[in-house]
C-alpha cells in the first residue's frame, strides 16, 4: 500500500466567526485529504469530520453512458440498478433493507461520465458499508428474472421523468441535437428498444470490464479514524483482483458548422418552452471558470440578467435556468426558459441572444464579477454541510479530472477569472455555429377530453 500524498494542512474544525472577517476575507474551509491506493489499484480517500457521529461513503466507477455503444443505450444506468439486485453474500433488496433499517440513507446515480453508489450511516456501521460495497464490486448475482425486473423499473423511471411529462422529449433532444459524438449524443436513460434488448451476457461483460478496483475510487468522509479505516478497507477490498483497464473513450466533438434547431409538438404541454445549448470546453479547461462566471451573471438569482429581462421586463417567462455543464468531455451551456402560454419561443430566444451579444460587446461589470464570486463561495461552503455530498464531489472530481484536491481549489480558480476573460469566453463560445435550439410547443389535442368515450 503506497501512500500517495496527504493534501492540505488546515484543520477541518472551524472556530466561531463573529466580527473580524469581512466577506472578502472569508475562505472556503480547506479539507485535509488522506489519499492512498491499494495494490489492486483502488484509490481510497478519507476526510475526517467530527461534527456528527456519522460518515458518508461514495464508490465512484469510471464508467457512464459515454461507454455505451449504439443498440445498448441506457445500459450503464440499467447496470447500476443491477448492482442492487444481489451479490455473492447480499440478497436482492437486502442492500436497501440493511442501510435504511440501520439509520442510514443511500442511493446510486449514473450520468454520462460516471456511476456512483453512496450511503450515509451512523459511524458504528462502517463495516456494514464496506462489506456491501466490496461484495458487489467482487461478484454480482445476476439472474434473468432480476434483470427483467430492473429493466421494468428503469423503463418506468423513464416514463415517470420523460415520457409522461411535458418537455421530456425536449430535454433528451437538446443533447441529441447539439452533440455529434455518440458518447454524449445519446441519452443516459436510453431508448426503450435498447433496454428491451439488454441481455445477461451484456450485464456480465459490463461488470467484468468496468467494475474493478482499479477503475474505481472509494471516498469516505466523516467521524472516522483514518488508520483504523484503512485497516478495514484493506480487509474488505484488498483481495479484489485488478482487471485490465477499460479502453478510453474519445469524447472529442468534431467541428460544428452551423446552428441546429428543432421544434417539438408536445401533447402533454400547456405552455411553450425554449431550450438553447452552446458548446463549451470540458470542466477542467482553462476557460471553463470564465464560463461559470458568465452562468452566474446571466442566471444566478433574481438580479441576474436573464431573470430580469425575460421574467420581469418582457414577461415572456415564468422561470429561467442557466447552467454550464461541468463534464469530463466537451460540455454545454444551457439556457432554458419556461414561457407563458401564447408567448412565441422566437421572441424569448431573441432576448437571450441580445443579452449574450451585450456581454460579447460590453463585457460584465465589476459589480457583477464580485457578486458571482460571493455567490460561488457561498454555494461551495454550503455544499460542505453534508459529509455524503462532500464524498460524492471528491469521487466525481477524481473520476472526471483525476483531481481529488479540486474541492479545495475550485473557489480560487473561479476567483482568478477576470472580467476580460468572461467577455472573451462569451465571444469564443456563445456563437451560432456552436448552438442548438429546441422549441417545445403545446400541441392541440386531437379530441377534446370532455367528449367522454
Amino acid at each position: 500500500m503506497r501512500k500517495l500524498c496527504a493534501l492540505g494542512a488546515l484543520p477541518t474544525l472551524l472556530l466561531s466567526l463573529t466580527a473580524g472577517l469581512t466577506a472578502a476575507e472569508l475562505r472556503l474551509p480547506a479539507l485535509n485529504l488522506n489519499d492512498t491506493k491499494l495494490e489492486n489499484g483502488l484509490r481510497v480517500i478519507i476526510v475526517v469530520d467530527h461534527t456528527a457521529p456519522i460518515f458518508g461513503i461514495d464508490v465512484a466507477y469510471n464508467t457512464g453512458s459515454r461507454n455505451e455503444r449504439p443498440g445498448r443505450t441506457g445500459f450503464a444506468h440499467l447496470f447500476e440498478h443491477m448492482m442492487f439486485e444481489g451479490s455473492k453474500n447480499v440478497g436482492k433488496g437486502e442492500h436497501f433493507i440493511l442501510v435504511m433499517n440501520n439509520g442510514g440513507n443511500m442511493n446510486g446515480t449514473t450520468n454520462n461520465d460516471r456511476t456512483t453508489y453512496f450511503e450515509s450511516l451512523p459511524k458504528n456501521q462502517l463495516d456494514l458499508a464496506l462489506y456491501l460495497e466490496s461484495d458487489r464490486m467482487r461478484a454480482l448475482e445476476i439472474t434473468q428474472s432480476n434483470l427483467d425486473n430492473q429493466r421494468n423499473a428503469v423503463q418506468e423511471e423513464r416514463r415517470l421523468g420523460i415520457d409522461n411529462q411535458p418537455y421530456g422529449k425536449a430535454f433528451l433532444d437538446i443533447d441529441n441535437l447539439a452533440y455529434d459524438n455518440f458518447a454524449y449524443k445519446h441519452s443516459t436513460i436510453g431508448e426503450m428498444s435498447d433496454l428491451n434488448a439488454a441481455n445477461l451476457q451484456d450485464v456480465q461483460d459490463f461488470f467484468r470490464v468496468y467494475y474493478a478496483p482499479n477503475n474505481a475510487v472509494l471516498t469516505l468522509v466523516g467521524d472516522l479514524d483514518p488508520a483504523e479505516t484503512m485497516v478495514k478497507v484493506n480487509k474488505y477490498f484488498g483481495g479484489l483482483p485488478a482487471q485490465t483497464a477499460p479502453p478510453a473513450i474519445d469524447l472529442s466533438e468534431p467541428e460544428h458548422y452551423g446552428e441546429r434547431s428543432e421544434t417539438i409538438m408536445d401533447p402533454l404541454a400547456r405552455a411553450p418552452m425554449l431550450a438553447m445549448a452552446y458548446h463549451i470546453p470540458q470542466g477542467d479547461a482553462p476557460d471553463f471558470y470564465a464560463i461559470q462566471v458568465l452562468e452566474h451573471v446571466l442566471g444566478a438569482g433574481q438580479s441576474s440578467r436573464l431573470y430580469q429581462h425575460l421574467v420581469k421586463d418582457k414577461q415572456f417567462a415564468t422561470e429561467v435556468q442557466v447552467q454550464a455543464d461541468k463534464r469530463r468531455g466537451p460540455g454545454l451551456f444551457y439556457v432554458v426558459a419556461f414561457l407563458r402560454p401564447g408567448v412565441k419561443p422566437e421572441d424569448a430566444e431573441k432576448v437571450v441572444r441580445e443579452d449574450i451579444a451585450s456581454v460579447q460587446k460590453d463585457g460584465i461589470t465589476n459589480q457583477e464579477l464580485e457578486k458571482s464570486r460571493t455567490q460561488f463561495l457561498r454555494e461551495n461552503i454550503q455544499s460542505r454541510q453534508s459529509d455524503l455530498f462532500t464524498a460524492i464531489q471528491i469521487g466525481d472530481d477524481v473520476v472526471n479530472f483525476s483531481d481529488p484536491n479540486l474541492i479545495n481549489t475550485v473557489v480560487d480558480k473561479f476567483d482568478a477569472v477576470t472580467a476580460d476573460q468572461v467577455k472573451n469566453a462569451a465571444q469564443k463560445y456563445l456563437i451560432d455555429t456552436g448552438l442548438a435550439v429546441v422549441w417545445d410547443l403545446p400541441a392541440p389535442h386531437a379530441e377534446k377530453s370532455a367528449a367522454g368515450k
Partner: protein
Amino acid sequence: MRMKILSLGLVTLTIFCPTTLLRAQGEGQHGASASKVVRLGRAPVSKDILKVTLPRPVVTKLPNGLTLLVLEQHKLPTVAFSLRIQSGAMTDPKDMPGLAMFTADMLKEGTTHRTSSQLASDVDNIGSSLNASARFSSDSTQISASGLVTNTDRILELMSDATLNPNFPQDELEKYKKRQIANLEQQRSDPDFLGEERFRHAVYGSFPAAVFAATRESVSGISQAQLQAFHDRYYVPSNAILGVAGDVKPSEIKDLVLKYFGGWKDHPIDKAKLGDVPPPSAFKIYLVDRPGSVQTNILAGDYGARRADADYISLVVMNRVLGGGPQARLFLNLREDKSYTYGAYSQIGDDTYRAAWYANTEVRTAVTDGSMHELMYEFNRIRDQQVPENELDESRHAIVANFALSLEQPQRLLNYWMLVQAYGLPQDYWDRYPEHVAKVNQEVVQTAAKKYVDLAHLQVVCVGDRKQIEDVLKKYGPVEVYDADGKRMP
C-alpha cells in the same frame, strides 16, 4: 411551481427517488412472483444504536411576543433564519383562494425601502438567499434567509424589510398576476399536481385543506388593499416563531433580532378556529383523465392524526412499515417484486388538523389493475395481520437510529424544535421520542392500521388515460371522472 422534474445536461439518474411531495390489464394476475427479495443475513451489522441527544436551541420570547430559537453549529461560517408565521392558506377567505400565497410571494416584489429589483440585487450581492411562501396544504407562511455569517446583519435586515415593510407595488402586482395565471395553466400538465388536487377535494370535502390551487378569478381579483390587509392582520410577532441555525452566538443574535424585529408591533388576532375535519366520505375512485399519459399516477389514503395527538407516533411507525422507503412493503412489492413501477411509497402529513396520509405510485398504464390489486392487498394485510415482530422491530429501530444523520444538518435540527413550538409539544418531546417509539408494539400498529387505513372510506385518485383504465378501475368501486381542468366528466 413544481415544473422542474427533469434536469439539464448531465442527467443524473438515481436508483430510487423517495417521495417528498405530492407528487388494464395486459399482464394478468401475477401468481408466484418471479423476482423476490432475499435476505442472506451475512453482512456485518452493529447492533448498537448510537444514543443521540439532539442539541437544544436557546429559546426566548421577546417583549413583543416573538418566539426566538437559536441553535449553534460551528462547522461552517453560515447562518440560516426561518420565520414561521402561523397563518397561511387555511386562513384564505373562501372566495379568495391563494391570498396567503399571494401575500407571501409579493413580499419580495417591493418594500417601503427597496424596489423588487433593488431587493434582488441586495440579496444576490452578498450571495444570500431570501424566500417566502405560503403553500396550500398548510396553515403557515414561511420566510427564510440564509448566507455567509459575515453578512449576518445584512441578511437579517433584508429579511426584516421584506417581512415588515412590503408595499405591494401595483406594477409588480400586475406582473405577478400574469406569472400566476401562467402557472395555473402549466401546473395542469403535471400529473402530480392533478393527483394531489383531486385527492384533497376527495378527502377534505368542504374543509379548507381541500383547496390546492388559486383560481383565475382569485388571481385576477387581487388588490393591494387585500394583500396589505392580510399582511397587517396576520403578520404579527405573537403569531410567529423565528429560528436561527449556524455559526452564531445566542446572545449576539438576540441583540440583532431585537434590532430588526424589536419594533415589530403586536396586536391580538382572532384566528377563526379551524374546527374538525368533516366525517370521512365513503370509498370512491376518482379518475382524472389525462390523454396521452403512459402511466397511471395512483394516490390512495384518508385522514391521519393531528401532529400533537398521542396517536401520531403509531402512525409514524405504521407508515414506515407500509411505505416509508425502499425497504418498505409497497416498494418491495410493486417495484422489486412485481416490476410495475420505479417507486411506491406512503407518507403522512403533520398539522393542527387530521392531515391525510396516502400511498402513491406511478405505474405503466397496462398494469393499473395489477397495481390497484397489490395496493389493496397491502392495505388489507397491514390491517388484518399483525406486523411480524422482527419487521416491526426493524422499523422502530430505523426511526430512532436515523436521528444520528440529522446531527449534521443544523436547519433540520432546528426544525425539530420549531415543531415543538408550533404544535405545543412537550419540551422533552424529542428526548422521549425513542421511548415512545419503543412502545409502539404489534397491537398498537394494528390498531392504527385499522383506524387509518380505513378501507370503507379510502379515497383513491388515478391520473391517467381514461380510455385505457376506466374499466379496470370500476372493478374496485364507484368511479367519478374529471378532466385536467377539474371539471366533472360524464
